């Protein structure tokens, strides 16, 4: 594994992208930052600008407004970057599958690296998911 990748895995900065979610997933993401879970332990930081991001945490069911913007935004992340679909919504649109305003599932828009199911997934699950992702990326190299 190259040094670059190693460093990437040790300091993944996450950017949170909500595409029409119910807030719950988003709140739980923020929760990960807070004292009980404190993802800064793993070097993760929540960043404000997508250009600083290494990991995109996508939540929500990709409504029509988001679809185009998602594509644009995905362009704007510096590669290498990983995409994590958080919650059932992002994974499969869950309950919103038939909504007139949620035309396409997330993975038809941008490539997704890992899915963390749950509605909302518990913070523990998110951390576990991201750690798994890291292991996977690290291991597969």
């Amino acid at each position: 594994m190259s040094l670059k990748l190693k460093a990437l895995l040790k300091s993944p900065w996450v950017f949170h992208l909500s595409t029409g979610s119910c807030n719950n997933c988003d709140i739980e993401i923020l929760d990960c930052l807070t004292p009980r879970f404190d993802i800064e332990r793993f070097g993760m930081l929540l960043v404000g600008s997508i250009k600083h991001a290494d990991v995109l945490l996508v939540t929500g069911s990709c409504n029509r407004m988001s679809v185009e913007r998602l594509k644009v935004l995905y362009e704007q992340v510096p590669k290498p970057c990983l995409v994590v679909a958080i919650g059932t919504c992002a994974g499969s649109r869950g309950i919103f599958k038939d909504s007139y305003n949620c035309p396409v599932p997330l993975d038809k828009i941008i490539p997704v690296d890992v899915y963390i199911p749950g509605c909302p997934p518990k913070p523990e699950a998110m951390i576990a998911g991201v750690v798994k992702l890291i292991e996977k990326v690290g291991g597969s190299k």
Partner: protein
Amino acid sequence: MTFVYLLVFGFAATAVLGLITSWIDRKVTARVQYRVGPPFLQPFIDIVKLLGKETLIPAGASKGTFLIAPVIGISGVIAVATLLWVNQFFSEGFMGDWIVTIYLLAIPSLSIILGGFASRNPLASLGASREMKLVIAYELPFILAALVPVINAHSIRLSVIIDSQAGGVFAGSLSGILALIVAILCVQAKLALVPFDIPEAETEIVGGALIEYSGPGLAIFRLMKNMLFFTLPFFLIILFFGGLRLNGINILWTVLEYVGIVAIITVIRNTNPRVRIDQAVRFFWGPMTLIAIVAVVLALKGL
């Protein structure tokens, strides 16, 4: 010879110390917030990681300025740091290097501003303009505060300032204390830390001037900020504590002074909300300038 100092101290040592300082800052912050905080090497890893990432250039922006801005910034810091180190260990500064230091310290802000402006992003422009306003705000009290040691030492030569504190540090006098307080707050603003993180205000303007930077560019900026995080307290120590005294028990004092300044900065940043830019300007031009003027007058009176 200069080059050796330059590379060894100006860059490498400053960078390492700066990164460690930034780790201390993050760790203390985390502890204050009941968190564990990042592992020790985290700032280093961040930089390495950023270096490995792609450089993105905003469409329609001025490519050259955008890319060169971080370099300008870091060269400014390296120059300051070298100057300080040279004065610290070799008493080899030149006349008036105090002025040069103050001017060079403006270069990092300048680079951020240029970079922000070159990003062609409204938010970056806004952030850069705020940085600019902040610079003019804190520059006044900062110059005044930095003048106090000059008045005390009757010289604008840093090595003289260091030497004349052999008997007793300036921070021990009334004017010194006042000036130190002002200077620390100005440093807070120079480092763009809460409550003066207005130019970067993540939750208002999304990282402000740095919004468009990614990869190496961002790495350089972060490195620059971390180096400043070491350089500025170092400057204060030179001005008010007679520099690093690396002999005997004084080592302990020096470390205490340094950690003390960093700790004050960190604590301030964790116990305050961000102020508005106009409040910041008012704060620096009002009470801070007043205190600084009092300090200067006291210093002129020899207190």
